[in-house]
């Protein structure tokens, strides 16, 4: 038995024109959490893809439990005790929990699937991990965090020794994160080696034993977590001193411009929400997942059906019957799941930038190519989007650049109120800073912003005021300058 469960030695991988990995080595001890950090494009995913055989490394070797290994695909890796809990959960939503866990290796009895054994085995694993889910529940009925727990249980069911967590907490609330950490602790005690990929430094410092930082396809350093601070990690990641995670707050909220009274949704859990928004203000919406934060934005923007409630912008009553009406009234909405409801993946930057603003490009019965190109050019420059050309497909950009394009899309419609749902999800530290700066610039120009986020430090760092939602209702307002996480969590649990 070697000292390490997993050793990846001198891994290099090139793609045409890019050296994605340059002589990277990492070693994972049994019963420890090894964090992997780095900005998007630093090579973390490429390294993991080499481990799982999705890419073939050009040179280097992979040693699992003392044996030199080369997996052909994810399934083979799983069978050798190497599992991945992915950021984008790959699950069969229309089938039940136990079928998802045993898919690809159903237990058989006389050639038919043995449902009882499948059920019993699932229950056994769930008990061990303290997961409270009925194995017969349809997958689509579970929350994202529960689905993730199922994915972990699946990894455990394969007797995995090495489990890779890729951004596991990006859509979890604080309580759910606690549960996840308890499970990771249990896995550690069983002697598993965990590779933990995340952008969230508080988490990394809390749960990892060792941290490897990567930059531009190279390993910067592996250090024991206890020797690290947030500043050191950031410095290693960006290769320069980044003194602040948040830009200086220069915006000054003015008079009240937008009022919401008694907002109640027809189908969603949202009841009697009233608040006011000032000119040039950034208002944060906190709360657990499902507390009604996204629902507020959807009801304001008219993409969800309102039961009752009144809205007033600059003293004028609004209906916001649908998204088109809302855009005309000066609203913009950046949706939560960028890849699903934000970008048009196979369309170009130009098409993605201009889609919400088509009416201003009309020239007779046609649209003016010149105007389209001009506006796209403006957006690329104003937001510093890194792209080879306007014709590039948006899906080939990094998450941060995609988000900038969507910001550009909404700036072209000249909104007064921006509704931002998790605007920095899945974006690396450097790009996050740019998005924050952009929000403050917008506020300085007199735009008002309502922002939903699951990252408490982000809300505290960027907002002027914060509303806390609990179970579809407004639980209270906190002053960002002198509130505590405890105060916010207490409010978030008020109506649960």
């Amino acid at each position, binding site marked *: 038995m070697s000292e390490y469960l997993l050793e990846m030695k001198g891994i290099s991988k090139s793609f045409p024109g890019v050296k994605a990995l340059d002589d990277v080595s990492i070693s994972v001890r049994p019963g420890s959490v090894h964090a992997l950090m780095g900005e998007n494009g630093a090579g973390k995913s490429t390294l993991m893809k080499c481990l799982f055989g999705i890419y073939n490394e050009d040179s280097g070797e992979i040693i699992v439990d003392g044996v030199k290994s080369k997996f052909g695909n994810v399934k083979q890796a799983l069978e050798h005790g190497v599992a991945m809990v992915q950021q984008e959960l*790959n699950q069969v*939503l229309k*089938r039940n929990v136990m079928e998802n866990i045993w*898919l690809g290796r159903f237990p058989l009895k006389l050639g*038919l699937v043995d449902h009882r054994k499948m059920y019993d085995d699932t229950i056994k694993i769930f008990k061990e991990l303290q997961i409270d889910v009925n194995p017969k529940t349809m997958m689509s009925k579970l929350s994202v965090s529960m689905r993730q727990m199922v994915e972990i249980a699946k990894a455990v069911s394969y007797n995995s020794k090495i489990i890779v967590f890729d951004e596991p907490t990006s859509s979890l609330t604080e309580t759910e994160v606690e549960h996840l950490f308890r499970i990771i602790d249990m896995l550690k005690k069983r002697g598993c080696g965990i590779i933990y990929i995340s952008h969230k430094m508080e988490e990394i410092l809390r749960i990892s034993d060792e941290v490897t930082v990567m930059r531009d396809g190279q390993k910067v350093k592996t250090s024991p977590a206890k020797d690290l601070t947030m500043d050191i990690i950031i410095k290693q990641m960006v290769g320069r001193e980044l003194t602040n995670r948040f830009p200086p707050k220069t915006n000054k909220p003015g008079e009240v411009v937008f009022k919401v009274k008694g907002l109640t949704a027809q189908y969603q859990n949202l009841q009697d929400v009233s608040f006011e928004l000032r000119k040039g203000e950034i208002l944060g919406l906190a709360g657990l997942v499902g507390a009604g934060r996204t629902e507020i934005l959807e009801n304001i923007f008219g993409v969800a*059906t309102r039961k009752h409630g009144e809205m007033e912008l600059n003293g004028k009553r609004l209906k916001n019957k649908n998204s088109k009406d809302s855009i005309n009234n000066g609203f913009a909405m950046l949706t939560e799941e960028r890849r699903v409801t934000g970008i048009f993946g196979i369309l170009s930057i130009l098409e993605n930038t201009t889609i919400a603003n088509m009416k201003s490009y009309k020239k007779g019965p046609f649209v003016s190519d010149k105007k389209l190109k001009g506006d796209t050019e403006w957006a690329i420059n104003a937001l510093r989007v890194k792209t080879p050309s306007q014709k590039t497909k948006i899906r080939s950009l990094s998450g941060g650049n995609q988000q900038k394009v969507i910001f550009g899309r909404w700036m072209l419609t000249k909104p007064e109120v921006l509704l931002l749902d998790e605007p920095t999800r899945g974006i690396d530290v450097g790009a996050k800073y740019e998005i924050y700066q952009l929000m403050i610039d917008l506020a300085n120009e007199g735009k008002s912003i309502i922002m939903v986020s699951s990252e408490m430090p982000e809300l505290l760092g960027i907002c002027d005021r914060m509303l806390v939602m609990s179970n579809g209702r407004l639980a209270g307002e906190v002053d960002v300058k002198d509130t505590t996480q405890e105060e916010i969590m207490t409010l978030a649990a008020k109506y649960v």
Partner: protein
Amino acid sequence: MSAKESARRGNPLTNWMDNYKNLEGRDKARWWGNFFINNALYIVLIILIVIVTVQKPEFLRLRPMLDILQRSASGLVMALGIAGCIVLTGTDLSAGRVLGLTACVSASLLQSNDYGSKMFPGMPKWPTVFVFLLVIAIGALVGLVNGFFVSKFSLHPFIVSLATQLMVYGTILIYVNQGTNAGKPISGIDKGYSEFIKGSVIPESWKTPIPHFVWYAIILTVIMWFIWNKTTFGKNMYAVGSNPEAANVSGVNVALTITLVFVLAGIMYGVSGFIEAARIGSNSASTGLNAELDAIAACVIGGVSFTGGVGRISGVVVGVILLNMISVALQWLAVSADWTYIIKGVIILAAVSIDMQKYLVKK
């Protein structure tokens, strides 16, 4: 279970009624709304029966019911095959033509020896089992071609089967010109074969014979139910239809699963061809024309969704019966054939629209 425990759990029916009584007025309305949406198919079925029965009370007699049963049984076999393709978010346009080809092959090889204008004079009737295996093989082959191109070249089944459907039709046209036939309908089917399909165990004197092929359809339904719900292949089919990527990552052989679904579908078309040849008695190049469209409509009415990964065998059965009941009912009401098409279209649209509400998440 102890008496105490059973008392606590209570009778499911009374529990359910208590739950309903505890609802407030608005929620009661919503409860009824959900009830109608969840049971739309059956409600449409009942309304239809009531309307026809009011106009023509004889409709509820055995004869028309038997007529519906027979029509359904003959359409059901194909629908059971095509349903798998729909669960994979696909479709199969070649079904009707494969039925046509296999029906012509069955009929030609099983013409009775003393029939005057045999297609292949001098060639004795084949053993029925051989012909059955041959047409199954033909169906499987077309299914294999469909499945291969869908899975290996990632082509949409619509396009693939659009192409194979043409090729199969061409083959039929060539085939019906073989021997002495020159494109004429193929009839003079062997008595034994005909009896095997259309005979009945219930004595003729009862005047309500249930032909054998109805039983065959029921047996096939049971087999398909087992394949869909109790085998690894069936569960893999649902998984691939719902999320092929996840299935692949879990080690499911996606290409093989897709191919097998199409092969199985092809086999079912072969079986339908074998049944139809004897049931119709006179087969030509146009046998089976557009049969796949009825089968697809039946599946979709029965809740086999084109969104993938959703569908049940029971739904296919109900869909097929509903569709045939509409046809028979309209005949009983003496509605002209022209109007029958229009009404059928309207009912399909309505049924599917209501059914879709189940899957919509309202905002």
